Structures are given as structure tokens and as C-alpha cells.
């Protein structure tokens, strides 16, 4: 089987995998190699590397491949090449005989790895070789997770072209993560990468496929979600420079082990070490949990030495079972999102909670979430949260937290994404989310946001995971009326700017609405229509009344004009000046004359 990967169009261009590989070699190969050193081209195919290499690095090219015809072709162009079965571990050891004492300056493995039936052994050999020779290798491996492949596979389409990421000749398939893991297990480490990136890969067909379209809703949504999950959505080939990571290369690499998730809940507690009594209360509520299947990641964010010392004292004060579950992570940079992202990186739980140092939870908080996970794994789990105003008072020289008002149920009992798009109804202490949203779908807290980072995260997370509400009050969100909090530290203009940025982001991409939300949208739309119709009817009524009023005023004015001669006549011949009947009433307050009284009654009875 040859490895003559036929790269379309760009093979010899500066943007081809081979060209990238040569650039990496130039940057990372050690200078001052001994004379006669070798560049070893494992799985050399028909010698493309040999042609590109030329005499650039003053090394002797040695190609190796399984396919005899390819080896003959390389030899035919004047290069050294050898045929051996690269899938046979014993055959791999023959390379040392081929080298015959010559040192190896560099190695390439271009589109060879994915064709090996025993990738671990190939990499293990490479690891030993690089460790011994202190050399560098460049590997080129197709990315099976290019969005074009995935978008078609989701809808049941799998194309087997002769070339490209889904090359049917491959024996193994790699993502960036799986490749990195395979390297790590063979004591190899990536030191640089120059991947080939194509928005449209050679799998971008048929051209009319809606999921492949950059303009269709589903295509845009898929690409948005995929881009968020991992940075290689449009990488067609990984081009990586690797070296030996250290001793311990094994011929029997360990079996794949996924990330540890044997803990139910990772609680990320961010603190600045300035609310120590509040932190003590928060810890006490965790020490009192009826289910202890959790860990606590206390992120001491931008604390001074004294503040961190105070945090450490609170941790030291905890019962042994809780102390054993706490990890303290100091962090000296970033805004409110940074400690959450640090916590996410260190979390091991299947679910994650954001727990501020002034939050409180009830004793069954973990227990109810853990119960709900059994039926609703993969969904965000939410409980009812109450809001309570608090302040700090000192008694006997010690600061204590004191409620200044009753606990209030002011958040919507049931979660609606539609409602949340307008206003947040879920304080972070009231929900936990699957860690998979971070590890598998790439969600993290937006570090450009100085406030509302939890709201922004929830909106993105809820549409992917959905939300299950547990109908029980299990958390207390404290509201500080007279001391600094995020609400007071950040000015209103900053909150508004963050909110507008958040809305801008969610408005810019398709949103996946959970089942049941369309009913709410329809209901809201119906009610809005009814309100608009009512408003229109009221407007028409107002308009009608205004017209009647204008008519009445015109009629009144007309009547006043008509009355003026009579008024003058009624005033008698001795009275020269015209009278105003309104300013010259009789004893009973009414105009004196009978005619005037009649007219006045007519005007006063008039109702529009």
C-alpha cells in the first residue's frame, strides 16, 4: 500500500501540507548537525519530501515505505530508499540497520500514520528514535473532524473519495485531541504546529447540501457550535513538529482513558478574600450537605497575601471530609470570568456549579441535583432560589452577616429560554451544568465580560443542554444593600454595555429552542397581538372622542357668537359695554336672561 497522498492543487504551493512540514523542519531542526546526518522519511511514498527537501538542510535523504513500487520510484530519482513493512514492529527495528550508525537529524511522517494498522507501535518507535537522536520529526495527519465531514455524517452521508480527510485507505482516524493523546502515550510532545486550514475541504460536496452551506440556518448553526467546541473545525491536516518528551517509551501503550469524572459535582467557588465571614457561611452550608459526592475548587482571585491567608484559614477550619475535597487555586489576573474558567480547567465532576463566596445552599442542594441527574443527565439542573437582603454587623468585635429582609421568591419558578433571552431569572447558585458543555462543546465563560458572565454562559448553555427545574427552594442568593458587590463595583453603564454585547451575540446566530418554548412564543405573540388590537381600538376611541370634543367646542363657539347680539340686547339701552354672561351672573350664579339660561343649560348638558 502506498502513501502517495494526492493533495489537490496546493501540493507544491506554499500552503500545502508538505510545504508546511518543510517550514516546521527548517524552524525546529537542530543547527550544527554532524556531517552525513540523515533525514529519515518514514512512509515516504513517491518521495515528495525528497523533492521538496532537495539540498536545503545538508542531510542525506533516506526514504522508507511499505510499497515496493513507491520505493523503486524514489530510488529512480536518485534518492536512497528502502522497502519494509512499517506495520510490523520487528521490521521497524530494521531501520537501525539501514541507518548503519548514521545519526538522524530529522524525520518526516507525512500521511503515513493514518495508514498504519498499529499506530501506537509506530509512534513508540518514533519516540525512541527521537529520544536517542535528540531529533525532531514532523508528522502530517488528516483531521477526520473537519466540519464538512461532520456536517454530512450527522445527516447520514459518508463519502469515500480517493483523497482528502476521509481517504478510504486510512486505517486510523484522528482528531487533534486523539492525536495529542496518542503522542503523549508514546512519550512524544508537540512543540509547534502549522496546520492546513480550509474553510471548504475536499469533502465540501455536494454543493447544494444544506448542512454544508455557509448561509443556511442549520449550516450556520452547526459551524457556530463546532467552532466553539474545538479550534480545528476547518483544519484539513495536522502538521505538527514533535520531539521526544522524556524517558519511559513503552512498546505497550496504555489503553485510552477518558477524563476522570468519578465525582458528581465540581463546585467552583470564587473569592477575593474580602468576605471571609460570608465564605465561612458558604463553607458551612457545604459541610452540612446530606450528599458529599462533590469537590470544591476555591479560586482565590487577585488576593493579597493577607486575603489569601484568611481564605486558607477558613479552609483549614473545615471538617476533614470537606478539607479533603477542597483545592485552592490562586489566580492573579482577569475579571469575573477568569476564575470560573480556571475552575473549569481543574474540575473533574460530571456537573459543575458556580458558587460565589456569599451564596448559601440548603442541606439537600447536592442531593437533589444528584437525584435529578439519574433521570436528566446531560441537562442543566436548576432549583428554586430565594433572594435575601443582607448586611454586616459587628458583635463583640466580630463581623456577622445579618438579613435585613425576608427571603423572597422573585425568580421565575420554571425555566424558559424565551423568557431568559429578555431577563435573567437564574442566579448561578441555583443551577448546575454538565461539564461536558466545556470539555466536549467548548463552552467557557467569556472573559471579555466584566459582569453578567453567568447570564451569558447560561444562555449559550441552556439552548444546547436544556434545563430541568427541581421544584424545591434550595439556594439563597444574597443581595448587598450597603457594601460593595459586583452590582455596585461596576457602574450601570458597564452593566448596560455588557448586556448589549450579550444581546448582540445571541442575536447574531441561530438559537436552538428547547421543546415547549414555541408554545410560550406563540402565547406571547397572541397576547401581544391582542394588546396591540386593544391599543388600536383605544386609539380609535380616543381619536373619536377628540373629534367629538373639537366639534363640541366649535358648536360652543358658534353658540357664543350667536348669543352675543342677544346678550347685547338683554343688557339694555343704558349699558354700552357688552357683557360676558360668564362673568356677570345673576344672584343664583346663572345668566340673568331666560334665553341665556336656556343656552347655558344646553351647553352644560352637552356630553361628547
Amino acid at each position, binding site marked *: 500500500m502506498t502513501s502517495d497522498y494526492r493533495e489537490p492543487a496546493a501540493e507544491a504551493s506554499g500552503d500545502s501540507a508538505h510545504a508546511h512540514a518543510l517550514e516546521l523542519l527548517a524552524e525546529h531542526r537542530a543547527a550544527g548537525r554532524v556531517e552525513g546526518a540523515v533525514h529519515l522519511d518514514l512512509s515516504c511514498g513517491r518521495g515528495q519530501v525528497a523533492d521538496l527537501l532537495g539540498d536545503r538542510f545538508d542531510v542525506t535523504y533516506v526514504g522508507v515505505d511499505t510499497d515496493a513500487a513507491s520505493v523503486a520510484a524514489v530510488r529512480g530519482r536518485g534518492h536512497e530508499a528502502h522497502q519494509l513493512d512499517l506495520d510490523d514492529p520487528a521490521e521497524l527495528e530494521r531501520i537501525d540497520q539501514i541507518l548503519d550508525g548514521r545519526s538522524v537529524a530529522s524525520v518526516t511522517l507525512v500521511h503515513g500514520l493514518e495508514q498504519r494498522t498499529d499506530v501506537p507501535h509506530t509512534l513508540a518507535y518514533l519516540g525512541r528514535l527521537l529520544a536517542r537522536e535528540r531529533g525532531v520529526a514532523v508528522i502530517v495527519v488528516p483531521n477526520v473532524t473537519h466540519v464538512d465531514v461532520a456536517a454530512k455524517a450527522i445527516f447520514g452521508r459518508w463519502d469515500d473519495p480517493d483523497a482528502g480527510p476521509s481517504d478510504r485507505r486510512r486505517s486510523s482516524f484522528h482528531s487533534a485531541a486523539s492525536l495529542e493523546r496518542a503522542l503523549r502515550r508514546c512519550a512524544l510532545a508537540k512543540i509547534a504546529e502549522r496546520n492546513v486550514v480550509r474553510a471548504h475541504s475536499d469533502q465540501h460536496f455536494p454543493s447544494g447540501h444544506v448542512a454544508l452551506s455557509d448561509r443556511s440556518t442549520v449550516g450556520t448553526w452547526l459551524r457556530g457550535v463546532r467552532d466553539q467546541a474545538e479550534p480545528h473545525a476547518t483544519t484539513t491536516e495536522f502538521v505538527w513538529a514533535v520531539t521526544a518528551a522524556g524517558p519511559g517509551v513503552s512498546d505497550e501503550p496504555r489503553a485510552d482513558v477518558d477524563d476522570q469524572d468519578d465525582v458528581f459535582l465540581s463546585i467552583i467557588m470564587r473569592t477575593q478574600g474580602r468576605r471571609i465571614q460570608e465564605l465561612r457561611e458558604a463553607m458551612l452550608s457545604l*459541610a452540612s450537605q446530606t450528599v458529599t459526592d462533590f469537590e470544591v475548587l476555591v479560586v482565590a482571585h487577585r488576593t493579597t497575601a493577607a486575603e489569601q491567608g484568611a481564605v486558607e484559614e477558613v479552609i483549614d477550619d473545615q471538617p476533614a471530609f470537606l478539607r479533603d475535597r477542597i483545592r485552592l487555586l490562586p489566580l492573579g489576573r482577569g475579571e469575573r470570568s477568569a476564575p470560573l474558567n480556571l475552575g473549569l480547567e481543574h474540575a473533574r465532576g460530571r456537573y459543575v456549579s458556580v458558587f460565589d463566596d456569599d451564596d448559601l445552599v440548603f*442541606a439537600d442542594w447536592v442531593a437533589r441535583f444528584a437525584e435529578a441527574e439519574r433521570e436528566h443527565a446531560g441537562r442543566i439542573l436548576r432549583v428554586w432560589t430565594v433572594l435575601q437582603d443582607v448586611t454586616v454587623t459587628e*458583635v463583640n468585635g466580630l463581623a456577622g452577616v445579618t438579613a435585613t429582609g425576608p427571603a423572597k421568591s422573585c425568580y421565575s419558578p420554571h425555566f424558559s429560554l424565551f423568557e431568559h433571552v429578555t431577563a435573567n431569572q437564574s442566579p448561578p447558585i441555583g443551577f448546575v451544568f454538565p461539564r461536558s458543555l466545556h470539555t466536549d462543546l467548548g463552552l467557557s465563560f467569556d472573559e471579555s465580560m466584566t459582569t453578567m458572565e453567568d447570564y451569558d454562559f447560561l444562555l449559550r448553555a441552556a439552548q444546547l443542554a436544556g434545563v430541568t427545574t427541581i421544584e424545591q427552594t434550595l439556594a439563597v442568593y444574597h443581595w448587598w444593600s450597603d457594601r460593595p458587590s459586583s452590582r455596585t463595583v461596576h457602574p450601570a453603564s458597564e452593566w448596560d454595555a455588557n448586556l448589549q454585547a450579550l444581546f448582540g451575540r445571541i442575536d447574531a446566530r441561530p438559537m436552538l429552542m428547547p421543546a415547549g418554548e414555541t408554545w410560550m412564543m406563540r402565547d406571547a405573540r397572541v397576547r401581544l397581538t391582542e394588546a396591540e388590537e386593544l391599543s388600536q381600538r383605544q386609539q380609535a376611541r380616543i381619536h373619536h372622542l377628540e373629534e367629538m370634543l373639537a366639534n363640541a367646542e366649535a358648536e360652543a363657539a358658534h353658540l357664543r357668537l350667536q348669543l352675543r347680539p342677544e346678550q347685547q340686547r338683554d343688557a339694555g339701552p343704558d349699558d354700552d359695554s357688552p357683557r360676558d354672561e360668564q362673568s356677570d351672573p345673576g344672584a343664583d350664579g346663572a345668566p340673568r336672561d331666560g334665553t341665556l339660561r336656556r343656552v347655558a343649560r344646553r351647553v352644560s348638558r352637552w356630553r361628547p
Partner: protein
Amino acid sequence: MQEPFPSTSRSVAVQSVVGGASSSRLERMLGALDNSARVGKVELACHRLVVLLGDAAPAPVLAEDHLQGLRDRFTHIDEIRHVMLDEPLGMARGHNALAAMGDTDFIVTSDAGTVPDARALWRLLGTFDEPTTGMAEAKQLPHEQSKAYDAGTGHTSWASSAFAMTPRSLFEKVGGFDEHTFVEHCADVDYSWMVREAGCTVVFQPAAIVFNDKALIERAGSERMSAEQVSAALAGLLLAHKWSREDVLDQLLAEYDTSPESAHHEAAGAFRERRDQGLLVPQRDSGHEIGYFRDGVYAEHRYE
């Protein structure tokens, strides 16, 4: 800030009347007290911590081998005593009985299953550096009581026995809880007022925190709930009588007589029966300087 711990190391007994609390809740409570003892002894606030569990359940909540396992685990507690009470004595008699078994400088009454912060006991103890302090109460989480207290001294009308500390000498001087009058309800209010009548203060220390999630207390049957309603209503009448508030007593009796609740009728009947039989305790605080009665509560409140 330097922790204002008590100036002198003392011995403390934490006592609980175990009703329906599960063994897991008691275990969590003991673990927290063990941790308290660890911190208190390191910081020289305390040299001896004893836990007394008065078990009023039909069968022991903690079996002997389980208890021994807990003693082996919680080694910072000097003594864990589990005492079977002959009958459900109620909070007042139960605590009096447990107090009689101890010899420590201070007594702490605690609801079964309450989880204290490591420093709660020692912060309460610190309030007794002020010689006039007679009783100190911790703040309960997650449901904080809304009783008003003086920001600075912490002085308040009364302290809940859910987690409160008092000197043994004072407890004995005032005769402990008035078990002849009160079974459960109002016994702590009454004790607080007797402490104040003796010239001492009752202090609420919000920095001393305990977790007492009452939602977790196992729900009693409807029959017991009804009995508790009668007991609570009767306690209100007895408290008003004892603390010389005839006006409150008359008002309550009138309300109970016309109430649709049968528990209220029963309570009014029981009170009159006691009164007719001459079983009411002598009245005190005739000048109304100690007792506080308004709208069914016994202290000013910070909010409704």
C-alpha cells in the same frame, strides 16, 4: 483581625435531645463538633468538650457499636455520652436531665443534627468575657431568625435553644428550664427571661454560625403535629401568665375560644384546667420589664 477568643480556656458540654434525627445527621453533627474541638483546643479556647445525646426514640438512634466507631473517629471530643431517656421528656426536661449529668463550665443546648462552624462554640464563649452575659445564641443557617438585636453588644430579648450557650452556674441558679410549665415551646424564651431577670444579658452573636436546616427534620405524623399545635398554643398562654401579661392572656384566650382550630380550643381548655387546679407557677415581672409580647412574638423583629 485577631480572633477575639475567650480569655480563659473552659470546658463545654454540648447536649442534644435526640428525637427523630437520623443517625447520619447525628454523625454529621458529631463530625462538626469534633472539628470544633480540634480548632478550639489548638487555639486554647477550650480544654474539654463533651457531647451528651439524650435519646428519646423508641429504639436507640445510635447502636452501641456505631457509637463506639464514632468515638474512635472523633477523637478531639473528650467524651460522647449517649443516654436513653425513659420517655419522650420534651426539650425542657430532656435538657435539664442532660445538664444534671455534666460538670463542665458551660452548657450548650443544640437541636439534634445541627452542624456548627468550627469557631461557633468559641465565638459564643468569647461573649462571656463580658461578665454580665448569661446566655449567647448562634446564628442559624439557612433560615436566619429575624429577631432584633443590638448591633455592637448583640443584646436581644431571648435566645433560641437550637444552639445557645449558658454558664452551668447560672443554669443551676435559675433552676434550668421550667420543665413544670413548658414541654418544648417557649421553654427557651422563658429561660432567657429568667437569665435577664437574674441581671444578666442575652446575646445574639451573628458571627457564630450553625447550620440547622429544619426542612430536613423528619416530618412527624399528623397526630403528633396536632399535639404540637396544642402544646405550642398552650405554651403561649402559660408564658403570658408566668410573665404577668394578663392582657395578652385574656386576648389569647378570647382568640382561642373563637378559633376554628381545635388545637386552640384544647389549649384554652388545658390552661383553664391547670388554673382551676392551682397548677400554674407564680407570676413574675409584674412591672413588665423583662417579657415582651407583641403579635405572638417575644422580641422585636427586624422584618416581618
